[in-house]
């Protein structure tokens, strides 16, 4: 208990930073992932190829390596300067978007053909069918895997600790500087994540109930 209460000034802000990192990259990867999914189902082969190439590369690269690229290599390219925190958000977004894309795409597959056909019969365009008929149903039917991906994202935020971002994963090194017991400190960090994951699982269950598509 002492390790937690003597160092609340670490645990509080650092876990808040984790949540900040999580929310920003979750929004980013949901947007980018949906755009990628739209590319992957579009009627233009070039767009499909771009989406596929992106997903294949991003899914098969370790996230730590993506981090290493944005933190160590990217600044040398001298494009737009990214601080450690924005770099971490970028790395998490670029990586997670590929997984979100695949989840959304599998959701699009669950929408019956008749829905799109009815839309076409009404004279809707491809964009309208996708945006107003198919995607809303697809997103609702993939709530569970979508949130599983977000839970993975939450856990992945710890990797930022290896790249100079002061979030929950970094609490350990600060504790060791203060000469606290690291094992106990780490168990508290673990408990923090168990609680955060439990919250997300709760959201998952309630959304699943409320948003399930009646077919």
């Amino acid at each position: 208990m002492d390790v937690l209460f003597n160092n609340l000034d670490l645990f509080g802000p650092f876990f808040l930073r984790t949540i900040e990192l999580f929310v920003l990259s979750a929004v980013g990867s949901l947007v980018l992932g949906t755009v990628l999914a739209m590319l992957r189902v579009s009627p233009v082969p070039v767009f499909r190829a771009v989406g596929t190439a992106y997903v294949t590369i991003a899914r098969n690269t370790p996230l730590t390596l993506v981090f290493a690229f944005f933190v160590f290599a990217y600044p040398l390219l001298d494009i737009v300067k990214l601080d450690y925190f924005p770099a971490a958000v970028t790395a998490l977004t670029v990586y997670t978007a590929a997984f979100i894309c695949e989840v959304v795409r599998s959701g699009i597959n669950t929408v019956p053909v008749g829905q799109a056909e009815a839309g076409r019969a009404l004279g809707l365009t491809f964009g309208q069918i996708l945006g107003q008929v198919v995607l809303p149903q697809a997103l609702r039917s993939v709530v569970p895997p979508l949130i599983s991906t977000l839970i993975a994202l939450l856990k992945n935020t710890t990797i930022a600790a290896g790249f100079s971002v002061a979030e929950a994963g970094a609490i350990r090194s600060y504790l060791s500087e203060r000469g606290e017991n690291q094992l106990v400190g780490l168990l508290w960090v673990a408990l923090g994540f168990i609680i955060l994951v439990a919250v997300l699982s709760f959201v998952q269950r309630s959304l699943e109930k409320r948003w399930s598509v009646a077919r």
Partner: protein
Amino acid sequence: MSNVLFDVPGPRARLRYRTYAVVGTVAVLGFLGYIGWRFYDSGQFTARKWEWLQYAQVQRDLGNAVLQTLEAFAAAAVLALIFGAIFAAGRLSDHAWIRGIAGFVVEFFRAIPALILMFLFYFGLPTVGVPMTPFLGVVLGLTLYNGSVLAEVFRAGIQSLPKGQSEAAYALGMRKTQVMFLVLLPQAIRAMLPTIISQLVVLLKDTALGFIITFQELLYYARYIGSQGTFGRPIVPSTIVATVIYVVMCLLLTALATYLERRNRRNKKVIAGTGGKLEQVALGSAAGTAGG
């Protein structure tokens, strides 16, 4: 499936698609060209930044780093599969207390980030007098995390089997353990092979986390070479080389999964009728592959 969304294009649509294709190609090429130009402009393509690849010693060390990655992967994969099988069987046990313990362990390790698990082993255990090496920390962390994910995969596979399988086995006079390990698990593993292998891809990628606890694997070596002043600090080239190696290794594993999936579809020994449920599970675990 893409024709869910659009009909066979007519002449005007084809013209429009062609315009989009041209615009899209130009945009993509422009983006890649810009990145390439930034690489070139900041001197990442100069011979000096790449000459390290020619040194025999560097090549040997790079090979060793890849071997370290593969060693950690192999050890953790085998242990995680064993852990998964045992705890899946535990969660399906008839004894409430075994179910309870197994369920608690699996949920516990699934909720903790793999990196925190590695920290717990590498930094935490030595404080209570248990000696640790980075290699052991990586392997144990990966085993517990991926093992508990695999336990859920096995469990879903077993639950998707028709009830007649275990009923027939019991009718033959088999014991519970025999039913589980001789009849149910082999079928579940076969049906779930593609999912299991995609989880192993996650495990392979997660070995790169070891770099944070100073395990000297591929990413660690790429970082090291990238910081060498004698080679002009080639961090961009070494990152590119490491990425290519990782992507190739993972794609080989993925190719194996796709091959097994295709073989499964032809194979009559794989129980039919589990399709819907397995798809559900596969959908869930496809998301799980984001783990690290």
